[in-house]
């Protein structure tokens, strides 16, 4: 995070303009390129988008704030089923349903986070692992939610345009949050909680904020998933999915946002690209994980962003005999 000098405060107007342009490009692609694209390929890209949303939330919680959460797929499940319920039982626009699904996941994050994040250590990992299991058992045993057979007959709304509109919103949200005073506090929580408390900062509150925001974007990812193939099943949100997301964050690098996003794109696309040699797919996938952990244990971009690689290193410190007075 100790990046090169940047102006402390920049006008947000350029950022907003770029963001609007990016949204326009996404919908331009949706209108003019997607109809000519192989649906199989489009499907991979959409699933990459959903991975990006899930991963950016965990990058915030684990990578920047240092809180080890093992139940991210549980929040996706809450978002997916929340969205499905809203879409089935009300007439509002499905994308409003996705937003409400995200809010439901954020609320679940608050319920899980409030009692747990007051503690330091591995409690959160255990509790979130349990939460992931509980939410699936709950869904499997609730006929209203379709039980183990899942929910079917949902509208198919998730397309390239909507998915990447959400991805851009999420990336902007989390990037801006990280570059604010809140972001500094998250990194300080990760580095030294006791010192942060000695500065009068409520560390529990900071951790809950990061956790709830992370859960929201996982919920949005789930919501989009529920409107993608007209059906959802509890088995889509098992513990293994949480581990997948965790692997993307760790491989991409903790303390980085772009690193985990690159890892998410790669690890979502890789199984598909390796399909022609499907028999060896899992071997290659595993080797990639192992080699990365040996060669770059800090992950692809640990503590850095992609853009930092194109910037020059900051000037070496000047020796200063600066007296205090």
């Amino acid at each position: 995070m100790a990046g090169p000098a940047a102006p402390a405060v920049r006008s947000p107007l350029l950022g907003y303009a770029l963001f609007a342009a990016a949204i326009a490009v996404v919908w331009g692609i949706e209108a003019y390129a997607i109809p000519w694209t192989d649906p199989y390929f489009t499907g991979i890209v959409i699933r990459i988008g959903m991975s990006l949303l899930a991963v950016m939330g965990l990058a915030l919680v684990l990578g920047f704030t240092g809180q080890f959460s093992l139940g991210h797929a549980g929040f996706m499940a809450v978002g997916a089923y929340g969205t499905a319920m809203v879409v089935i039982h009300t007439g509002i626009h499905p994308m409003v349903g996705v937003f409400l699904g995200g809010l439901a996941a954020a609320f679940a994050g608050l319920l899980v986070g409030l009692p747990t994040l007051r503690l330091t250590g591995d409690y959160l990992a255990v509790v979130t692992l349990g939460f992931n299991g509980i939410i699936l058992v709950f869904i499997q045993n609730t006929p209203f939610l379709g039980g183990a057979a899942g929910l079917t007959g949902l509208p198919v709304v998730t397309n390239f345009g909507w998915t990447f509109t959400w991805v851009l919103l999420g990336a902007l949200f989390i990037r801006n949050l990280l570059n604010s005073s809140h972001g500094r506090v998250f990194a300080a929580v990760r580095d030294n909680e006791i010192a942060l408390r000695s500065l009068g900062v409520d560390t529990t509150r900071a951790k809950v904020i990061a956790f709830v925001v992370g859960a929201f974007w996982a919920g949005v990812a789930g919501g989009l998933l529920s409107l993608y193939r007209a059906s959802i099943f509890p088995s889509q949100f098992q513990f293994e999915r949480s581990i997948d997301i965790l692997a993307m964050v760790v491989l991409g690098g903790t303390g980085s946002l772009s690193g985990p996003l690159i890892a998410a794109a790669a690890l979502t696309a890789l199984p598909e690209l390796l399909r022609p040699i499907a028999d060896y797919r899992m071997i290659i996938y595993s080797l990639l994980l192992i080699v990365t952990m040996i060669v770059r244990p800090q992950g692809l971009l640990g503590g850095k962003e992609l853009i930092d690689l194109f910037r020059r290193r900051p000037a070496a410190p000047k020796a200063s005999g600066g007296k205090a007075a």
Partner: protein
Amino acid sequence: MSLLELKKTGIRFGGLRAVCDLDLALPQGALHGLIGPNGAGKTTVFNLITGIYAPTEGDILFQGTSIVGAGPTRIAAAGIGRTFQNIRLFAGLSVLDNVKVAFHRHLHATLFESVLRAPRYLQDEARADADARQLLDTFGLLPMAELGADSLPYGLRRRLEIARALATKPKLLLLDEPAAGMNPSEAEELMHLIRWVRETFGVTILLIEHHMAVVMGICERITVLDHGARIAEGTPAEIRKDPVVIEAYLGADVHQETA
């Protein structure tokens, strides 16, 4: 009225009385030393004052109000800043951001204002940045503002930690062995820094230190702890001559210190 007052304060960890029956009163503007052999309970006293531990006996008053049970965050917000024996900087943040974090409590922008880069967020950031740079400048750290805090040499880390604690605008500053690991000339410079901090920022200072030249040189009064109890209090001249203190430090006592 005393700014800080410990009344018969004590804490037990199981059967161990780490601190017992400690009375201590710091008037506004004092520069008070807390000394004692290793394991005497000095840092434990700091942890009691800052709320990391809650005392099992006695009371702690800050500005006349009891702060027992308030917890580290609220006690810090009430105006007690501290540094740590083993320096606790935010290693992943720049020098500048280490100080900016300390302003977090005074910023007004909500989460959504921050995310949307609303005017109030921009004002907050501009002010935090200017204040942090000014503070770094007075500490001679401005040239290193953009460097990672973990890349600073040892002496400057100490200095940054003091600057960061002052960013919260404390009324009372607790310094835990600021001269640890410093050579005599660095310790000398630190003495000037501490005096200067007291005058410039108008803070009351309580100082733990093993470096006797520093303690005797700058403190107006000194409290000596041994085995968690106060064995002496007085001016540096009185403490230097006190036979009880001399025995605690040099005497061939049967008690073995466990740090």
